[in-house]
């Protein structure tokens, strides 16, 4: 072990679990909060009663009612037009990855959430004009246009993994890229043309031990391929211009001989992408951190310092690292308590209203 590695080991051992990153500061306890806008003007939070509330401009609105201990997930996008809300009414009683949750949409400026269907893993597309979600028992992806009744479904083929979650990117109103597993368990990207009702294989991964992530940032598509098992160690990220959408036009922007956890975010800032990287080679021990990869020179910068980072989220323009029940700010504003967020007394009285 080199001196630098030894030093790193001693330092990390001493500060195990402690990060030097700023903690996300909020006025109310973080466990109840489900969404914080970048400017701090909008807060969505839940209470044990089972309801979800919107707090904005010193007012509180009950967005969704639910049974006791209901749990909510609020999903936004960089378009910042709409928010998707998944309501799990049996969160503490049915630990299921395949049950369907109710899905609601909260449009910008509104204080009323509208139910749009039931499923899992909802996602916004094309400047928040479309929403997609998975129905695990049907094995379909449902697409809904938010301001119209337009709806269509794609039937998936996966058989071997009941907990499979497809990656979905809408190219335009008629074309979709999504991931699926074939009957042998190989991952692939399928391109679907709705007008022609035509499916074409965009990429097929010949190894069952690999997964694919898709991420779109305006005119660029990023395709990441990671190994899932010890026997298939390798990570690759491709970049493809949206106007030349073909793997033949893909350029490799990152490669590693280890399996990265990934969880790619490509639309947080121009000119860089973010993912969780396996740093075992550099640190000579198991180590995962969030890194920022500069597209210009392909160099990367380590953003986190917790050794075992697994996820980070883009919360309306703040990059947050959840770790041991604490949210650390990787990039963006860390002190959101100076904005909005009503005092509890006011909040309760508003709820009563």
């Amino acid at each position: 072990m080199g001196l630098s590695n030894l030093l790193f080991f001693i330092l990390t051992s001493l500060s195990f679990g402690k990060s030097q990153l700023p903690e996300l500061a909020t006025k109310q306890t973080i466990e109840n909060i489900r969404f914080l806008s970048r400017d701090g003007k909008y807060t969505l939070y839940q209470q044990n009663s089972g309801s979800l509330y919107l707090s904005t401009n010193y007012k509180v609105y009950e967005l969704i009612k639910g049974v006791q201990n209901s749990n909510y997930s609020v999903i936004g996008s960089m378009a910042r037009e709409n928010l998707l809300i998944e309501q799990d009414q049996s969160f503490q009683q049915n630990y299921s990855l395949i049950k369907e949750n109710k899905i609601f949409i909260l449009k910008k400026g509104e204080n009323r959430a509208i139910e749009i269907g039931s499923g899992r893993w909802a996602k916004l597309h094309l400047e928040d004009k479309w929403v997609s979600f998975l129905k695990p028992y049907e094995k379909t992806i449902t697409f809904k246009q938010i301001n119209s009744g337009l709806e269509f479904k794609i039937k998936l083929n996966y058989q071997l993994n009941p907990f499979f979650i497809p990656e979905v990117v809408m190219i335009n109103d008629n074309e979709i890229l999504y991931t699926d597993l074939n009957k042998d368990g190989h991952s692939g990207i399928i391109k679907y043309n709705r007008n022609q009702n035509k499916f074409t294989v965009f990429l097929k991964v010949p190894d069952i031990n690999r997964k694919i992530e898709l991420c779109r940032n305006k005119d660029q598509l990023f395709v990441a391929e990671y190994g899932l098992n010890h026997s298939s160690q390798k990570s690759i990220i491709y970049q493809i211009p949206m106007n030349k959408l073909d793997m033949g036009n893909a350029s490799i922007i990152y490669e590693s001989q280890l399996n990265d956890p990934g969880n790619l975010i490509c639309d947080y800032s121009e000119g860089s992408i973010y993912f969780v990287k396996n740093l075992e080679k550099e640190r000579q021990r198991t180590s995962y951190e969030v890194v920022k990869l500069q597209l210009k020179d392909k160099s990367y910068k380590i953003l986190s310092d917790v050794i075992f980072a697994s996820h980070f989220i883009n919360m309306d323009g703040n990059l947050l690292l959840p770790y041991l029940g604490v949210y650390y700010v990787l990039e963006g504003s860390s002190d959101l308590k100076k904005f909005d967020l009503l005092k509890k007394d006011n909040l309760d009285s508003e709820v009563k209203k």
Partner: protein
Amino acid sequence: MLHQFWQNPFNRKLCIIIVSALIMCGHNSFAQTFESKKGLIEVLQELIEINDSKNRNIENKIKSQTEVISSLELIKDVKLNPSTIRNILFYSDSKFTSLINQDECRFLMMLETGLIKTGTGDVPTLIVDYVDEKQTPKSSIVTIKDYLDFKYKTACTLNKDVRELFNNENWKKTLTASLFKSPKNMEICSQELNKLVINTYFPYIASLGKTLVDFEMNKQNNKALSRSFSSLKIQYKEIVDNLELFDLNLLRNIYKNFDNAESFCAPYIANDVWTKSLNGEVPKYVLEKRCELISGKNNLSQEQLTACVNTLNKKKDICSKGDAKGQSLYPSPDCEKTSEALKQSRLFTDYFDCPSNVENLSLINSSRVIKHFEKTPENSSNFCSGITFKVLYELYEKAKQIDLWKFQICYNDRADNSEICLPYIPGEVPDSPIEEGKVLALAMSKVNGTSEKDFCRIVDKKKYNPALLEYSTGCLIITDTSFCSPENCERKIVYDKKEITNITYKGDLRFDYFPNNFIKEQYSLVNMIAESTKKKGKIIRSLTDLEIYFKEFPDAIVHGVGCGEDLYPEHFRKVALNQCNPVPFIISGFQMEKGEKRIVFQSSIDELHSPRMLIWNMVFNSVANFKILHPLNTWTLYGIK
């Protein structure tokens, strides 16, 4: 057979000796054969024929003698006839004849234990030469027993003692004291083997292995009807009933490979769990279940299991396919990683379950915890969620909470126009009176007038074809057997090809794993398990806690609930604040990997026999992130012993 015989270098040497001996006998026909320069196989074939012919001549000659000796008592000395020696060399396994090594006592013991043979017949006899009272040289056929009794009067008295030590009363004790435990490296293994081979008891020990191998081979070759098979079966049963799997495999291995240290030691120095399971160091079901997963067949023979071990060690990706039916998280770890984890896993897994068919993962985990302490194996079934629900039903029975059982099959009672609901256990549970197929048949009889004795079979919708005879009559439940939970299931009931619509299923998959409130605390699965099994729980807050707990209690396991996204970041991505999909899991061991501690981890979405190895921090992080969302702020990681 001749080909195999010739491939053994010892046999080749032996053949040359016999050929030379026969040349010296001046046998004309042989000389002619030898001169004709035939192939060696043909030469050997002819040698056997010559030998048989000579034996027949001698036997006929002896049988034609008017003087037949009834006892060897009055004879001073008896020698084996050269034809007997030749027979021994012909009919015995060369690896045993090579052991004789001019030690008459060992030779006699090997003759006594059947390791060396004088012919192919069932009755063990010898041709002996002796000199009668008139000093006339004569030959006679005697039983081996008579011959040995005669010899033991004057020599090798120790053999008689050893015979006593291996009689019906003493053999197990003697054997247990003589066998060794699993050697850890080649050097120790070779030394142990050498010590064993020169041990006085060796012929008896090897003969026990011979009984096992002979019986299994005869059974496999359908020779079960032969006369000697029934006595072999009795001996076999006596051995199998009295020894552990490791010792049984050791006996087989001694008999087959004592002359080849490399082959003999291979299973003991092998580091994979499959070989260890095959030779009994870890439970046999570990290998059997894995082989069942990859072959789709159960009750595999020892030979098939050996072939399976080779496959598992050569094609490491074959384990990644998990259950191959789409009932658990895919892919599973490869065979190498699975093997490493299984070596340290203490969880009882002699059955199959299927996470996707149960949906609520806390039921899968509860059932696995209960099964670990019950340790009752279960046969495979077509619709394996039944095992989980059966265990759960029994838990409710023990807790006297059957009224709270949530799965029912309902019909409308025409007499008073009320809905009648009968409790049932979802899936295939043949030993239960409230198995789904039986309860549905009962409901059918009440509402449709069919026979109460009918049984409704669960049929996979992919296999169902009404045109086939097997599906044309009776009651069928047609469903996707890989993806059907009691709450979410596309099922069709068919009776004599007609769809039945007047019977409904009711189910509610909501259960508290850890208590979610103080009022209903006693109804949480964790509390019901603790109450029914009388097992105590201990909160585990650190890796040190875990290590101490496991060291202190060899059968203890640790179970808990954490956010699936933190346990499997490569499968489930976080996109929202406080996003968490709770996944219950069991920690069944820990081990060092590349100088770092790893947790042996069996989560409720993983195939039961495919544990993973995780870093403690991932598990800790997942529990910490779930804790802040829990209504009682509970730390959901507990040891149970």
